[in-house]
């Protein structure tokens, strides 16, 4: 039984944590949120220099050739500071998509640049407020050209390469493919879209006959590819959520210890004590589920989908709860613009929705449990 990260992985975590504590305090997140700056270039640059963008990219493609476990510890630290950088879009999603399903040629073309941070990638799945599904993805791919509108696309205004879920015709899931679009090769325009978390860049992305090629060598496999890509991302997002939960709990804890009401620390009232205990309980459940998700991801285990869904459900529940009750613990001051509480409040919900809402993941999970139970 060795259900823990290795000493090397823990050391990596410590390095990332130190770097972000130093270079990415909440004031940086605030700067990006309040300005037109799409992301914190200085922080991103530092992460690139540490080689973290290449963590899980094979050495032959310019990465460090480490695995998902290392990516998980990085994710937890990025989540802890609500880092305003395109790491999840470029690495958990775009790079992983190409690493998993790209042809040798596609890997050679894109992975080295993504690893080196020379370019930024993202994925474009959603087409508005309707959950993406083989039946409602209308963006088309024909004759090597993609046309359609994706919304929202996270980090879309800064993305150089976009993995786009497209409809290539055919029945059910076979209708969907994933296309690689070079965002700088024309036919792609973006318009900023306002979201609940302006510390992350989001756009409406319009494709007009944008040159593209299918990811991998076969069409019609996009839906199952997307499912696997999102399973992996769900585990990594869950580590960001665990980190964020820990940070929100720590903020609430510190305030509860320093703030006095009626001559007592507010942290001495059971309403606050038990609220924080509940945050802690949810955080531990999320952490333990995420550990298993990390292990399944690392082993490409047979329970990856269940473990990923469980990580996402527990992680979203923990972070949203902690972020909400952190504001509540702070009282009026916690609801002001000046307070840092808002960054977790926004990011928690952003993470819980961006790769699909928990209620959708619960469906995915239970379908699997049903199948296993029937077997």
């Amino acid at each position, binding site marked *: 039984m060795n259900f823990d990260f290795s000493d090397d992985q823990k050391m990596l975590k410590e390095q990332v944590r130190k770097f972000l504590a130093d270079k990415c305090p909440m004031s940086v997140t605030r700067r990006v949120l309040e300005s037109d700056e799409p992301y914190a270039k200085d922080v991103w640059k530092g992460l690139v220099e540490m080689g973290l963008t290449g963590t899980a990219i094979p050495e032959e493609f310019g990465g460090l050739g480490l695995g998902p476990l290392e990516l998980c510890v990085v994710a937890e630290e990025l989540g802890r500071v609500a880092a305003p950088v395109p790491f999840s879009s470029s690495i958990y999603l775009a790079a992983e998509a190409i690493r998993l399903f790209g042809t040798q040629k596609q890997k050679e073309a894109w992975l080295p640049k993504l690893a080196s941070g020379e370019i930024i990638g993202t994925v474009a799945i959603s087409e508005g407020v309707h959950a993406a599904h083989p039946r409602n993805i209308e963006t088309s791919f024909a004759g090597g050209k993609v046309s359609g509108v994706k919304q929202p696309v996270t980090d879309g205004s800064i993305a150089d390469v976009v993995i786009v879920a497209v409809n290539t015709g055919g029945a059910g899931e076979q209708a969907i493919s994933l296309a690689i679009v070079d965002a700088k090769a024309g036919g792609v325009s973006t318009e900023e879209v306002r979201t609940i978390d302006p510390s992350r860049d989001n756009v409406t992305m319009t494709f007009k006959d944008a040159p593209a090629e299918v990811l991998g060598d076969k069409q019609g496999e996009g839906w199952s590819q997307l499912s696997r890509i999102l399973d992996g991302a769900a585990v990594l997002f869950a580590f960001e959520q665990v980190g964020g939960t820990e940070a929100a709990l720590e903020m609430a804890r510190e305030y509860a210890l320093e703030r006095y*009401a009626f001559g*007592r620390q507010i942290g001495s009232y059971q309403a606050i004590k038990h609220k924080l205990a509940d945050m802690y309980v949810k955080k531990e459940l999320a952490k333990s589920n995420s550990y298993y998700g990390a292990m399944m991801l690392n082993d490409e285990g047979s329970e990856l989908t269940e473990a990923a869904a469980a990580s996402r459900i527990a992680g979203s529940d923990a972070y949203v709860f902690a972020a909400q009750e952190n504001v509540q613990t702070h*009282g009026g001051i916690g609801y002001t613009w000046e307070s840092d509480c808002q960054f977790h409040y926004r990011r928690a919900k952003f993470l819980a929705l961006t790769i699909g809402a928990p209620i959708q993941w619960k469906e995915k999970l239970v379908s699997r449990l049903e199948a296993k139970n029937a077997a």
Partner: protein
Amino acid sequence: MDFNDTPEEAAYRKKVSEWLDKNATKKADAKGMELPRDLDELIAQSKAWQAKKADAGYACITWPKEWGGGGGTTIDNVIYSQEEAKYLVPGGIFAIGLGMCIPTVMSWGSDEAKQRFVGPAVRGDEIWCQLFSEPAGGSDVAGLRTKAEKDGDEWVINGQKVWTSGAHFCDYGILLTRTDPNVPKHKGLTMFWIDMKDPAVEVRPIKQMSGGSEFNEVFFTNLRVKDSQRLGNPGDGWKVALTTLMNERLAVGGSQGNADTDDLIELARDVTIAGEPAIRHGGVRERIADWYVQAQGLKFTRFRTLTALSKGETPGPESSISKIVAAKKMQDLGSFGMDLQDMGGVIRDRKLSPADGAYTEQWIGAAGYRIAGGTDEILRNIVSERVLGLPGEIRVDKDLPFNQAPKGK
């Protein structure tokens, strides 16, 4: 058991709606029309409308006529509000002044003060705000630190208030200060009325998480007020403040966010879960049922209160539960409405979002609503202590001089 008016109530309602028909436009007929977004225009319209109401006896309906009121009953007031709500008329900016400040002046002010202020406030010529909360206070209002020191027959005031609604357009305010730090905190307070236009008063808007600014910080730098501006005796400030606070939680209790179960049904018809219409999803349906039952429960709890009023009884404590339920429901329903939009739920743009963006706005707003005018936790304390008679909190600072009580940063 019925929802019908008594004959007297029916007669009054008829009179009211006839007057409203003459003097205002029904929302139903007000397509395209809306209240001015410009604050100055809105204030001007509000004042004009308030004056009209005063002339007709519909401003401060329950107050005696000699004070410019309507000399009516509580239920008259309820009926008027029900009817006025159907019309596109400005309102709200006088609520705190007439609901909290002027009643305090009437109970504790000098005859001169009453003569001077009540009339103009009723007519809407002058607007009032309430200056109690402080950064250090929060739920513990009496923990305030703004200092008032006697100097001849004047008082010199220094300190800061926070969460003051309307401070930037108000003419006057009632201000709670600490005049004696050497006695336990509830005993060293004194109340004054002040001129908000005094240069020694500085108003700064507070920006909220939502991006809006409905509240202000107010700073006092050597503000000098006459002893005659005192409301109640020195040291009686807390007793005076209770007159005012009585009404606050009712005042806040209103808003429950825009989106409700009907909107949720429409949204659920439009979006899908795992490819199927969300409205067919049993978990969505259970939430719709639960929130509908909560909304109905609150609505009919209000009806029970109104019934008590119309019988001349003082309403039971039922109303105290309203905000506990409404605030959490507002946050959860908003949050779930966003979930139903899946990845698109992060969008905060009225044009792109269902229900004109109501889900997102109420999810954000609820974070403040769960705190404003009494947090969830304070309200549960109130229910358990005042309604159920459970013991109050242990007050370690009860008998300590304020300047020796533990305060943290």
